[in-house]
């Protein structure tokens, strides 16, 4: 019993010490980014989103900002940014106006589009170049070669919903396998090594186009749309952090630049790869601050 009581006293004293010592930085939490140079970025784990996000982190930190990154599913990103007391400020990888149409319909009126990270994004069903069919309409005739499977990405992604629409519209006898962006690339590249037929839900920009010989299947019914990779923020962010908002307003990459950045990240890891590309392109990136 004595031991139990000692344990209890110990627990309480630990709690007390901690709450006392934590009072010192308690102001930090609620204050968010109003006064300090602090930016909280939410990002989905897609190659281009990771690339934009870590580049922004490298550049903003060089300018004296404190940058916090949180990896979240896309639905959570939109939901959280739309809140009045949101814990996040910005997301650089919103697929608008089409792929993320549903999220925008739910939350768009509480969000701000402050920039465009990349224009000319496309989505669709992607096969290796050696696959001899060229249109989604030819999939059914070859379903055995594809094991009747379309390798998809996360259930929360807009491209996932569009693929379900495509399966419906083209009456495909296929099933979409839910995985993740990297798992999709892994199955694609494994199939290419084994020279098998495979169809995945793919998008541009993505480094898989650099590393492999791929093609989109034609989409005569126009299910898969073109998009702009939009930078969205919570309301009031531009007022709280005008300098950072200017940076995001000007933030913009060409396809070639983005692939270079993605390759640097693939070779060196997120943090080091983005820092390396930032150093090599400092003049361009720093010009976005003005």
């Amino acid at each position, binding site marked *: *019993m004595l*031991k*139990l009581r000692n344990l209890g006293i110990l*627990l309480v004293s*630990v*709690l007390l*010490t*901690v*709450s006392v*010592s*934590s*009072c*010192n*930085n*308690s102001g*930090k*939490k*609620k204050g968010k980014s109003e006064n300090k140079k602090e930016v909280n970025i*939410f990002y989905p*784990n897609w190659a281009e989103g990771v690339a934009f996000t870590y580049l922004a982190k490298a550049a903003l930190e060089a300018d004296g900002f404190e940058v916090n990154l*949180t*990896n*979240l*599913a896309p639905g*959570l990103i939109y*939901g*959280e940014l739309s*809140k009045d*007391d*949101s*814990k*996040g400020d910005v997301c650089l990888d919103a697929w608008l106006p089409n792929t993320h149409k549903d999220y925008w319909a739910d939350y768009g009126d509480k969000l701000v589009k402050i920039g465009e990270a990349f224009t000319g994004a496309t989505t669709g069903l992607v096969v290796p170049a050696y696959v001899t069919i060229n249109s989604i309409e030819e999939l059914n005739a070859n379903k055995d070669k594809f094991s009747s499977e379309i390798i998809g990405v996360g259930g929360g992604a807009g491209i996932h919903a569009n693929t379900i629409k495509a399966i419906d519209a083209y009456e495909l006898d296929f099933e979409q396998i839910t995985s*993740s*962006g*990297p*798992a999709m*690339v*892994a199955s694609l590249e494994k199939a290419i090594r084994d020279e098998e037929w495979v169809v995945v839900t793919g998008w541009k920009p993505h480094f898989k186009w650099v590393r492999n010989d791929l093609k989109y299947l034609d989409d005569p019914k126009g299910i898969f749309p073109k998009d702009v990779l939009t930078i969205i923020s919570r309301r009031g962010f531009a007022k709280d952090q005008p300098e950072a908002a200017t940076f995001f307003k000007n933030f913009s990459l060409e396809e070639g630049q983005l692939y270079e950045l993605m390759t640097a990240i693939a070779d060196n890891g997120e943090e080091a790869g983005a820092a390396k590309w930032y150093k090599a392109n400092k003049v361009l990136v720093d010009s976005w601050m003005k």
Partner: protein
Amino acid sequence: MEKLIDLGKYIEAGINKLEENFSGLWGAIDDVISWTVNGMNDVFLSIPFYVIIVLVALGAYYANAGKSSFKIEGLKKGGGMTLFVLLGLFLIFAMGYWEEAIQTTTLVIVSTLIALILSIPLGILAARSKTADVIIRPILDLMQTMPAFVYLIPAIFFFSVGNTPGVVATVIFSLPPAVRLTCLGIQNVSEDVIEAGRAFGATEKQILFKIQLPLAKPTILAGINQVILLALSMVVIASMVGAKGLGSIVYQGIQQNDIAKGFESGLGIVILAIILDRITQAVAKK
């Protein structure tokens, strides 16, 4: 199939009401948990890593060797675990995951403390009152068997992203065994002993604190040990709503199909689990 009952809609409406009517309370809980977690992280991270490693190793040694700490047999009892702590924690540091390991430990400590503050009184209540037992038991069943991912949805709704929804989901998931084992431990105290106590004129309070709880101690401590391990098993799930630590590295590893990242951070969680488990078990045995 057409739904006969739209149960989910009612639950959603109920949760919406809870959110609106008690938003001050949720904000306060969020503040307290965030302060505690951030404060603890700052304290731990301000201490050099080797000091923490040595302190934990000494703690592990003392927990295992106890009274024979300064004798040869103490070395036999506690030496192996101490070596494991030194090597294991240094491996985490060498892999570059020290900060994440501290964040994970903090999450586990905070969740475990909250779980224990709630669960031990509940366990005592359930052991001493039939009615309470009948009410608490099915709730515990629900808490334990509902897939843990489901708790993330209301948790994030009430507390937004970050450490707090992770801690809350972890508390819900890890609390039941402590209630059950506390209750079991007290119920297993033999009727004869309690009768004897009554015969000597012990009050109800004395019976609880001087007879039942001391005799139930090993079972209660086994419950605490379970809470810690369940809390650790939640860190990956908690990272999906933005909780920091080794869990978020595992989550990235899964999403990026990165074997190296996944295994390194997973191994870090295993090392923490073994250390926390062995230390609490050794304390329980004494």
